[in-house]
């Protein structure tokens, strides 16, 4: 075999995503067509008469049969044309490109916080199962996941912005007086640091804190829970006994032996949590006026903005295919058994 097995594995995973992608395109198309409301009526604006609505309907191609519309849609997709959003009047592709980094920055920051808190918590809980630390952990993370994110978000705003005045105004990613850093990655924090502008970076960080915290609170539970379970299982496995009998230090056993093995299911969970977080993003972005794609999607959905909803969902799907690929690759990195067996 000339192709290394890991590369082949990655290739196969990519291929596996194709039918799912097709399914996504179809479902998205049907779902958006099922949305109530007539975009032609919306487009025609107030005080439009029947003739102008019909004219617009024809122009949008909405008077054609569904299969025809679908073919046109797929054709447009193939050429990278995602259409133009009604509600913002911008090409959907451009909108997504400008908004996606905002959502990703928020989601990743939240995940970073969540992982940073939840994994140590899970490990701690697993080393003392059923001890008070374990119960306390369980209690805290469960409480975090038990509240709707918009409620947590508003409560945090109320306390930290409105009452205490510690947090900046929840008005998006930056102060009004600051302008975004030069576009490199689209992640303001990274861009600001790249540009060496500490003031802007600080402002970005301050704006990121509350929404990321809101989201992190929500995602803490699954990660901590899975870490605990995986750690318990890893700690109970026989190779840990071997390691102990060989006199390895507790730290080494915990981290190199148990945690690395426990990471596999945790990484899988992270993928799932990412999906949750992106969903929850929709609500958090609304609370914090965060210019991401989640808030964009909600607005688009409410006005039956076909092109925008389709573009959004497709982007998400692509993101997921990508994410799953990353997870699979991470998996193969952590677990040497993959890619060779099966």
């Amino acid at each position, binding site marked *: 075999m000339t192709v290394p097995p890991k590369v082949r594995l990655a290739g196969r995973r990519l291929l596996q995503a194709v039918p*799912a992608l097709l399914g*996504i395109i179809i479902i998205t198309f049907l779902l958006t067509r099922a*949305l109530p409301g007539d975009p032609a009526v919306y487009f025609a604006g107030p005080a439009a008469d029947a003739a102008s609505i019909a004219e617009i309907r024809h122009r949008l191609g909405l008077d054609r049969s569904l299969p025809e519309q679908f073919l046109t849609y797929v054709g447009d997709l193939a050429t990278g044309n995602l259409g133009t959003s009604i509600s913002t009047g911008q090409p959907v592709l451009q909108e997504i490109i400008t908004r996606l980094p905002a959502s990703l920055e928020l989601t990743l920051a939240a995940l970073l916080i969540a992982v940073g808190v939840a994994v140590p918590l899970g490990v701690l809980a697993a080393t003392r199962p059923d001890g008070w630390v374990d119960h306390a952990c369980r209690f805290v993370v469960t409480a975090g*996941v*038990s509240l709707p994110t918009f409620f947590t978000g508003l409560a945090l705003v109320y306390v930290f912005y409105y009452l205490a005045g510690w947090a900046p105004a929840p008005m998006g990613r930056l102060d009004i007086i600051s302008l975004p850093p030069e576009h490199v990655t689209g992640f303001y924090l990274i861009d600001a640091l790249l540009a060496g502008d500490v003031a802007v970076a600080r402002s970005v960080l301050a704006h990121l804190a509350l929404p990321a915290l809101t989201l992190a609170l929500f995602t803490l539970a699954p990660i901590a829970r899975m870490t605990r379970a995986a750690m318990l299982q890893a700690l109970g496995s026989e190779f840990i006994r071997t390691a102990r009998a060989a006199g390895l230090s507790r730290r080494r056993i915990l981290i190199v032996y148990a945690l690395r093995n426990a990471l596999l299911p945790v990484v899988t969970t992270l993928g799932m949590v990412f999906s949750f977080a992106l*969903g929850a993003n*929709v609500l958090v972005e609304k609370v914090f006026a965060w210019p991401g794609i989640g808030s964009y999607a*909600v607005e688009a959905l409410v006005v039956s903005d076909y092109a925008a909803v389709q573009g959004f969902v497709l982007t998400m799907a692509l993101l997921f295919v990508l994410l799953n690929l990353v997870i699979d690759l991470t998996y193969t990195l952590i677990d040497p058994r993959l890619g060779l067996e099966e």
Partner: protein
Amino acid sequence: MHAPVPASIAAAGPAPRYGWLRHLRHVVTGNPVTGVAFALFLLLVIAALFGPWLVPYDPLATNAAAALQPPSAAHWFGTDQLGRDVLSRVVVATRLDLAISVAAVALAFVAGSVIGGLAGFYGGWIDRVAGRCLDTIMAFPLFVLAMGIVAAAGNTVENIVYATALINLPFYARMVRAEVNVRREAGFVQAARLSGNGGLRILAFHLFPNALPPLMIQVSLNMGWAILNAAGLSFIGLGVRPPTPEWGIMVAEGANFIVSGEWWLALFPGAALMLAVFTFNLLGDGLRDLVDPQRRT
């Protein structure tokens, strides 16, 4: 566990025959957290069943004169902008919220189990087709899919239930598939074949019940998500229709009143919602122990 508990300990002694009720008691008393969870669950069930008879006011009756009153002796949880009693609404909402979550989870559980069971047991093209369909659903951010479905189909309670069920379905399907698949070649399955059991019977009576314990954890988590999901939909205006009291919509509407100082509108339904989700989440281990005969020692 680092060293195996000697078999003599694990299987020692005459194991008395436990009835189901005794097993329940055993599970509930065995772990304090589970005990608390079951007690809270009981409280929720009571509120759901008898709520309308327990509350001091009609949850739908407005009283324009007593709008937006903070908690007081007359209105423990205060009143909303139409003067409706928040306590009464919170208690009465229990039934609908539990119904939504139970119905959604039951639907997802049944459908997911069937799909996952068939895919895991028969493998081959069934597995591949099912797998791709589930991948498709999973590729949507869950909340967004639910949002789309409810927006497209209309915001009725049934549609909220269907949407919630659909987004939860892959979890069950995948879990059952994995659990069935891992035991497909187990000795007791082969033994069942030798005993003359057909494929479906093996799947239904031998394999599926063994997948129940981990599924119970999932059920408990999903019940909580279902409520949160409904709340999220309410927040973007796709929840149940007024004036029906429902926690999610109350929190969602109340959330806008936090800044103006009417904290009780969001806090109490929020607390009820949190309590319910919290209860469901904590219930998981207990439920698992309940359906796992191996815990009957």
